[in-house]
């Protein structure tokens, strides 16, 4: 029978053969077609053109991104950064606080709608501060908590901390790392423009962000519209400019549903590295007498149903991890994922993930009622 394995060429047959000749090596595909041209001068032009084009293109991209500085990595601020600069805004507001905020709201943009004044009304606490920031993570919460504590070292505070199923990540937002208020609390992560940032500004994502920023400036809305009150809450006029406001809630939900279908059934494993800042913050709060209330962010009803059907483990895993942490730290868990539990309305979402102020007030009522006294005036005495 004829061999159907890749057929053997004569030099591969067993036996005693010397080193392969030039023709044999060519036969073994050592020389590509392009190399047969042997035109040294033309290749010199070719390589000079290639290297020049490569260098010029990358330099141009880097210069463009460095000048626009969309991620605020260099700090020119010639044009506003593409990312919401609310970290610096909130840290500046904290620096200007005159009285200790008795309740502090932490979390991502999903927590932005929480009004400290409304919480005060519900709890009887006197003052508050919303320290939630866009894409807020545990490292942001840690820095905010420490900044407030540095301002009022002997006062006690209550905390409401909104998290999603992943609870926390190990990431530090470059803007946070860049801010002088953060540096004392981020160890070696204090920022100065680094080689890694050169890579960031050579990338597509930064270039797209630069383009968006420039386009917005050319179209005449170069300056941000998100304005904050002294207590860190959004001014009413800012509500219509929120980036999460979807033109069509239905479409936004449909897109999110499609994305959720591709989610892994389980959460990525919780590691010490991921939870480092989360645990640091809990340790600090507990040591200063506070019992924070950790709230799992609400999920749009149809998305929640899909998650329950296909990915119910994600919610269970998040709760299990929180309960595990409760053995080491003192905090209250309130699961706000299912909006039916706290009387939320599907129409009161800004998009598939962000609730509006009406739903936030409903959620806060539920949170306060289930906070086991962690938000009572007695807790801050």
């Amino acid at each position, binding site marked *: 029978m*004829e061999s159907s394995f890749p057929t053997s060429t004569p030099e*591969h047959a067993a036996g005693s053969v010397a080193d392969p000749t030039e023709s044999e090596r060519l036969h073994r595909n050592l020389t590509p077609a392009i190399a047969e*041209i042997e*035109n040294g001068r033309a290749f010199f032009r*070719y390589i000079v*053109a290639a290297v020049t*084009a*490569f260098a010029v293109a990358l330099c141009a991209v880097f210069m463009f991104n460095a000048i626009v500085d969309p991620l605020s990595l260099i700090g020119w601020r010639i044009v506003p950064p593409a990312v919401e600069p609310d970290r610096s805004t909130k840290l500046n507001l904290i620096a200007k606080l005159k009285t200790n905020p008795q309740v502090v709201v932490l979390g991502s943009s999903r927590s932005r709608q929480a009004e400290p004044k409304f919480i005060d009304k519900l709890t009887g606490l006197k003052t508050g501060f919303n320290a939630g920031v866009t894409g807020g993570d545990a490292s942001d919460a840690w820095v905010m908590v420490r900044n407030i504590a540095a301002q009022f070292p002997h006062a006690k505070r209550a905390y409401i901390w909104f998290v999603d199923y992943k609870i926390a990540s190990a990431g530090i937002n470059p803007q946070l790392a860049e801010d002088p208020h953060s540096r004392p609390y981020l160890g070696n992560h204090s920022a100065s423009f680094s080689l890694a940032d050169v890579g960031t500004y*050579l*990338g597509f994502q930064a270039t797209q962000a630069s383009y968006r920023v420039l386009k917005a400036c050319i179209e005449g809305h170069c300056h941000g519209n998100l304005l904050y009150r002294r207590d860190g809450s959004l001014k009413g006029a800012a509500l219509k400019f929120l980036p999460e406001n979807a033109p069509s809630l239905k479409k936004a939900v449909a897109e999110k549903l499609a994305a959720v279908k591709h989610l892994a059934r389980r959460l990525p494993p919780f590691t010490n590295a991921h939870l480092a800042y989360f645990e640091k913050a809990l340790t600090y709060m507990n040591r200063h007498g506070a019992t924070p209330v950790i709230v799992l962010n609400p999920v749009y009803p149809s998305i929640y149903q899909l998650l329950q059907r296909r990915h119910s483990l994600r919610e269970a895993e998040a709760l299990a991890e929180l309960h595990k942490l409760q053995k080491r730290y003192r905090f209250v868990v309130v699961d706000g994922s299912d909006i039916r539990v706290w009387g939320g309305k599907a129409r009161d979402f800004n998009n598939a993930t962000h609730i509006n102020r009406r739903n936030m007030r409903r959620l806060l009522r539920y949170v306060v009622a289930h906070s086991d006294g962690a938000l009572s005036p007695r807790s801050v005495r």
Partner: protein
Amino acid sequence: MLFNSYVFLFGFLPPVLVGCWALRNKNLRLLFLTLASWAFYAWWDWRFLPLMLSTTTVDYIAALMIHRTDVARRRNAWLIGSLAINLGLLGYFKYASFFLNSLNGIGKAIGAPVGLPDLHILLPIGISFYTFNSMSYTIDVWRKRVEPTKHILEYSTFVALFPHLIAGPIVRFVDLRPQLRAPRPKLTADAAGVGAYFFTCGLVKKLLLADQLSPHVDALFASSKHLGLVGSWAAAIGYALQLYFDFSGYSDMAVGLAWLIGFRFPQNFNSPYKAVNVSDFWRRWHMSLSAWFRDYLFIPLGGSRRGAKRTVVNLVVTMFLAGLWHGAAWTFVVWGLVHGLALGVHGVLKSLGWTPKSVIVNRVVTFLYVVAAFVIFRAPNLHVAGTILWRMLGTAGVESWSTLQGFLPGRFVILLLALLAFVQLAPNTWELKLKPRLVYGLATGVAAAVAVMSIAVPHPFIYFQF
């Protein structure tokens, strides 16, 4: 260190190129390349560097000892010693956990739990590749096909040379010896041009094609239970294309880097999806590996010289081991067996004259078979592989339009169709007779820059895990 990372492109490669060509003395250059390659390897995990050094030392000494004597018994003993150490290390680091877990599984299945511990052994990157490189050398010396080198730097450079160290191509000493013995005195413009061309082609294949397919393919495989006919085929074809562009991209980069430091590596891919039968596919896919298995396993087993039945057995055994070489998992074993059987069946049909005459029919059938087999290769386990293959037969029907929109975003579908046409119709990087014109130079530079712009989060090459 990944080829597609900033640290390699801007931190490692430029000083290595400068150092390599600044050192005219052969020994200094080989020493420099060896040290640079070890640094390249140690960047990933320095603890495994001694492992590679021990493989290098053992085979260097074994080859010299084999060559020194004509007494068959002594020659065999040195060869067996070398193979035992190489395969022992490979077996321990790559397969020990797999076999223990399999024994535990079998014990549990038959109601007699064995309770063997899980060793949690970390797989040293590139071990399969450099072990095979090194083994081919001692076997070739034993066969008297090549004289061993007494020059330790020639040998250490051959084993460690960074372009092929992590994921091939599997280079033979017989190919590199003339290049190691008489290194090129200077980097010529044509060598630099060819190197830049290959490296850029590889970067583009990996970063702009394979990495763009990857998230969609991953999502499809993760949703295997919800796929219908279209989704399952999209997953299978998407992965086949991703794997090809990922691995052939890596091979192109390796070839390009080799040209830039004065070496020539063999071709590793020759438009495999244009193959007209499974045998042809293996002549075109991962050519350096299939040639290795052919020369060092299939032919010594008797090849096709001992009748039809024995040929089929040899093919199945060879492909079983080729499958196992890819990874310590049953999916790889089954993938190898599936290909072994296909090679055997093809051989029988061909000898009976029963193979179709139409090139188009042959190409389509081969492509579909290879794509289906890659489902087994990619799937996390045989159950998922079975689910997707079953659905590829249409057993779960066709998805609704809205489901398809969720599974198959427009960008993915366009990319899939374009790449499908590309692999079937376009020439490969080795066939292109690119003229070294100014405009092509500019295009190469811009293409490389665009590829580099997408590096932000480097994805490792699929074959690194093997």
